[in-house]
């Protein structure tokens, strides 16, 4: 088996601040994903990456940047945090891009003051 770790678990930022979330996986999976989870809205895809140095925009990419410098890691940057923003950011990985289940990390809970 494998595991996905996300750091930090909790992130508190100020309005306008640039914030970075990190994700590591040891499944040796090719594809990694970042989702945003808001209460009552399910999960929405922000970015995904099918291999090292690849980036693909999801439905919610505006306001975010991502980086995949190694196969095992995928970072997400909130470029300018919005006041009163509160959400959970989930990282996932899968062996391929089509019709494969995804494996999720425990999440990073963001609060913007």
């Amino acid at each position, binding site marked *: 088996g494998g595991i996905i770790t996300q750091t930090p678990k909790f992130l508190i930022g100020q309005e306008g601040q640039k914030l970075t979330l990190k994700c590591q996986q040891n499944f040796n999976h090719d594809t990694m994903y970042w989702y945003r989870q808001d209460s009552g809205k*399910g*999960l929405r895809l922000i970015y995904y990456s099918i291999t090292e140095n690849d980036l693909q925009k999801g439905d919610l990419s505006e306001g975010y940047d991502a980086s995949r410098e190694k196969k095992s890691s995928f970072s997400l940057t909130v470029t300018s945090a919005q006041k009163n923003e509160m959400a959970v950011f989930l990282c996932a990985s899968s062996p391929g*891009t089509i*019709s494969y*289940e995804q494996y*999720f990390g*425990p*999440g990073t809970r963001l609060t913007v003051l």
Partner: protein
Amino acid sequence: AQSVTQPDARVTVSEGVSLQLRCKYSYSGTPYLFWYVQYPRQGLQLLLKYYSGDPVVQGVNGFEAEFSKSNSSFHLRKASVHWSDSAVYFCVLSGNYGSSGNKLIFGIGTLLSVKP
């Protein structure tokens, strides 16, 4: 448009009863379907998946789901629930979305509360 509908945002049952959580999907091709569970303050865990073949698929912890192409449904069932099954359950659709790429479409989730 591709979509997943979970009509019940919240379900409350007593321990030991049977359970069905409903899921309807909209997709023109052959769907690949999943159920995930999210326990409090944790990530999502895969319960079961359907790709093809037998429409009834077995998952972990006694859960099963039945795929129906005619009804566009993928309902989750358990014969006897336990208080530890209390969690949020997501029905998820995967398919080839052409120029939009391949991605998972999530329902909004059903919060299951099991009373001891």
